[in-house]
């Protein structure tokens, strides 16, 4: 017992160490890329911010105030330095500090993403394992085709159809979710349900597919047959032998989508007028609010990378093969 826990800890630490180095490097590259794309490519930032009727003196003054005069390197260092100490600048559109705005919206997006996640995972596990147990039958094929066509249709089309059915005809949920950011818990839940369902539907197909292949691999394996022959009850077999193996491939997909879910879904938030980070960034891009956009990208990038780190850790905890491989390669 002690050896496994030690191995587990070293493998985890190794992975964590690698990620801890990797995440800042990736974020650094993202910050340079974003800075270059948003401040250098479009030209003079002061001119862009103040519009074509501002005088040259006003533009120079604006550039000086916002630290975007001087060489590109000093400009970049000024921005990233400010970002590090929490001074993210002022939003042009909202005239409030960028930091408060971004963090508040991030909270809303995290909430919506988590809700979608909570809806999606059990459904995917149920559908996927049901498919695996009836592999090749017509119901298996029907679920695959249905889910794949759902994910091929843009989210805003699916959302519009669901809005028509549930908000306009059945009137069980409101058409707009803007009110959802305040109010008591059940009000918020009611308002957020439809956006969360639309968000979940987009990723359901891939996730179900992974659960299906994981489960079908597990139930055709030797160890599964052994467990059956041993006379274990089917509940025990599923709990002890199938679930773990079925979930390992699923986790890798989950990691990729968790970041997207939590970082704010641009389309769903816009469609339902939900006050999330994604919708904020669309406004920022539309109105050329550069500082807001840059901070939004950095935060979204950080959230995606942390989500990947989180799934890596879950991976190691769940799949013994990864632990052993890590030991052999060390």
């Amino acid at each position, binding site marked *: 017992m002690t050896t496994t826990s030690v191995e587990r800890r070293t493998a985890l630490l190794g992975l964590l160490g690698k990620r801890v180095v990797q995440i800042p490097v*990736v974020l650094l*590259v*993202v910050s340079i*890329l*974003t800075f270059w*794309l*948003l401040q250098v*490519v*479009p030209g003079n930032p002061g001119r862009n911010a103040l519009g074509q009727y501002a005088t040259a003196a006003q533009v120079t003054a604006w550039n000086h105030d916002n630290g975007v005069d001087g060489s590109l390197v000093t400009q970049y260092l000024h921005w990233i330095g400010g970002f590090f100490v929490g001074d993210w600048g002022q939003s042009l559109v909202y005239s409030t500090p960028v930091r408060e705005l971004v963090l508040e919206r991030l909270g809303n997006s995290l909430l919506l993403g988590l809700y979608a996640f909570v809806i999606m995972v059990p459904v995917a596990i149920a559908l996927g394992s049901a498919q695996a147990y009836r592999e090749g039958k017509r119901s298996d094929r029907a679920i695959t085709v249905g889910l794949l*066509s759902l994910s*091929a*249709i*843009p*989210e*805003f*089309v699916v959302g*519009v*159809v669901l*809005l*028509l059915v549930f*908000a*306009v005809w059945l009137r069980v949920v409101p*058409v707009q979710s803007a009110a959802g950011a305040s109010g008591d818990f059940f009000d918020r839940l009611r308002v957020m349900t439809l956006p969360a369902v639309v968000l979940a539907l987009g990723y359901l197909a*891939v996730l179900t597919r992974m659960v299906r292949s994981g489960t079908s691999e597990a139930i055709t394996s030797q160890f599964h047959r052994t467990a059956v022959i041993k006379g274990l009850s089917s509940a025990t077999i599923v709990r002890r032998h199938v679930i773990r193996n079925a979930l390992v491939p699923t986790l890798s*997909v989950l990691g*990729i989508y968790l*970041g*997207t879910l939590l*970082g704010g879904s*641009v*389309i769903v938030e*816009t*469609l339902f007028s939900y006050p999330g980070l*994604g919708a904020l*960034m*669309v406004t*920022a*891009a*539309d109105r*050329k609010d*550069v500082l807001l*956009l840059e901070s*939004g*990208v950095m935060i*979204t*990038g950080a959230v*995606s*990378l942390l989500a*990947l780190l989180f799934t890596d850790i879950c991976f190691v905890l769940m799949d013994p093969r990864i632990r052993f491989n890590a030991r052999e390669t060390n």
Partner: protein
Amino acid sequence: MTATIPRSAAPTAEKQGPVTDDAGERPSRIRSLLKRPSFVISVLIIVWWVVAALGWQIVGLEPYAKTGDLLASPDWAHPFGTDNLGRDMFARVVAGAGPALLVGPLGALLATVVGGTLGLVAGYYRGAVDTLMMRFFDVILALPSLIFLIVLVGAFGISTAALILIVGILFAPGIARIIRAATLVEMGKSYVTAAKLQGEKDSRILFRELLPNILPTLVIQATLSLAAAVFITASLSFLGLGEQPPSADWGLAINENRIYLQTAWWTVVFPAIGVASLVVAANLIADNIREVSR
């Protein structure tokens, strides 16, 4: 859509045998494609939208003029009803095929050319440039694609040319990675070694020897990114970051008219059907080509 791309690379790249039996294979591939009803229907849908995009002016539709009452429900004069400015929704949906078919396909073409070339060069020369390029692409692919898209829109703006460039930049890294992997497989084969020993020029080996052999992979990637590009441009114009009013673009129409969802569902539903039919048809074509070339 991103998750399906890597799977297609390996089998096709390995399956490609000597160049000679390719000629006999190609007609039968097309024939087996034509036997698939989902492929034929999808092609018909795309053809219909292409005809609509090119021909709506010829048949005299008026998508930009007030031709009826405001928000009138569908009747004989206006089969899809009218919008909040009294414009005929049928004319607008038909004319909306134009912008939908402009940015996506041209962007996908740009991505295929750029990504294909970068992948070929990286796989052929290897070395530091290759490593640097792939690491850089890893960083880009780590960001959610819509977020990267929004940054690109912030940088280049939303003119049609800029949007084509943006879609090209967005899809090129993914294509480059897969073409690089396919090139690496080909590099291990003897015809490349033979060509090198013969003293053929690098450019000749790249484009006359390697390119024909990875062409099937490239075609699959091109159709897959075409479907994804149509999807992405529709999403962009829905976000208001694409076509601007009074354009008849479908995504834009859905965003403009969603406030009338309760009173005039037809202003939203018909553009939505337009988007869905085009995107699903493009996806089905890509899927069918991928399955047939396995």
